[in-house]
């Protein structure tokens, strides 16, 4: 743990140091370039705003109405049948759709079952091994104005499914 924490806290400052050193060496006007790049960031953030508002509102309607929970309830028997622990199903379903909701669920599962329980470990692994497909799709395609996304969503969701199944199998094999 010590080494990992050390790497993740040192990495960004050291990267910064290398960039500034090399740039100054090559006589790049560092501050001016920083400001120029930063202006792009402001523009980008504002162009993202409507995409995020739209997507987050639609997801929250689905969640707050209870429709998402009902759907999870509906398919639970099938998932339990193939060996998915029932406690983990809501997390597995929500992980690709909403990052904040998934993090909340992971925290709650770890809190309720304990971090070192089977469910706690499974939730931890699941949280870390896939990412919020819908969010990434919205941000990346939204920011550069991609309208026709072709097979991107299918690929993303299928990869999530594989990741979730893989987490269950691996955690069962190692800690089960």
């Amino acid at each position, binding site marked *: 743990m010590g080494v*990992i924490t050390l790497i*993740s806290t040192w*990495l960004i400052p050291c990267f*910064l140091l290398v*960039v500034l050193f*090399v*740039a100054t060496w090559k006589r790049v006007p*560092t501050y001016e*370039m*920083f400001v120029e*790049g930063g202006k792009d*960031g*402001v523009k*980008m953030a*504002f162009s*993202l*705003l409507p995409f*995020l508002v*739209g*997507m*987050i509102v*639609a997801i*929250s*309607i689905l*969640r*707050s*109405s209870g*429709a998402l929970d*009902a759907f999870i309830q509906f398919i639970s028997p099938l998932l339990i049948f193939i060996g998915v622990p029932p406690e983990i199903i809501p997390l597995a379903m929500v992980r690709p759709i909403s990052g904040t909701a998934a993090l909340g669920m*992971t925290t709650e599962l770890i809190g309720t079952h*304990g*971090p070192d329980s089977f469910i706690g*470990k499974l939730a*931890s*692994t699941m949280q*870390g*091994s*896939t990412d919020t497909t819908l969010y*990434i799709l919205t*941000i*990346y*395609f939204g920011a*550069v104005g*991609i309208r*026709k996304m*072709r*097979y*991107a*969503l299918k*690929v*993303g969701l299928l*990869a*999530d499914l*594989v*990741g979730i199944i*893989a*987490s269950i199998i*691996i955690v069962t094999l*190692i*800690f089960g």
Partner: protein
Amino acid sequence: MVNIIWAFMAAVGIVYAMFNGTMDEVNKALFESAEEAVTLTIGLISILVFWLGIMKIAEEAGILTFLANLFRPIIVRIFPDIPKDHPAMGYILSNITANIFGLGNAATPMGIKAMEQMKELSGTDTASRSMITFLALNTSSLTLIPTTVISIRMQYGSGSPTEIVATTIIATLISSVSALIIDRIFYYRSLRR
């Protein structure tokens, strides 16, 4: 596609609320979540400004090209339709590196930059092959060290907070490799049509 999914999520929610008696919650969530999205964007501004500023310096200093050259043999295989010396390679690489170390904050701006470069290459508003591959890699999460999860485990007094690093790495590898394979399958299927 996204239009239908988006409208579908909202419509299903509203219709369900009519019968479930949760219209109050939906009404509240509508405005709260809009506000949440704005707060999220404001949070993003600081990250985007900082990282795009730094990356602009790195680009001017030739660091991105250097990185791209270093890992060219691997990246060229994964993204065959990006020209070898294109700056997109450098951004893709920075995004992957940031992801691996669990620096999601740094990964997003670089990912957007990579997308921008790839869009310049394709010049249309249709997702190109490499864009989808890149997206697939990102959605499968390349995180090898899940810092957020470790910190949550520590908060709840885990006996061994980093115990899940190994399982996460294996699961991530499987999901990333599968993402690449699934992406290839869909790509070749789209060619045949």
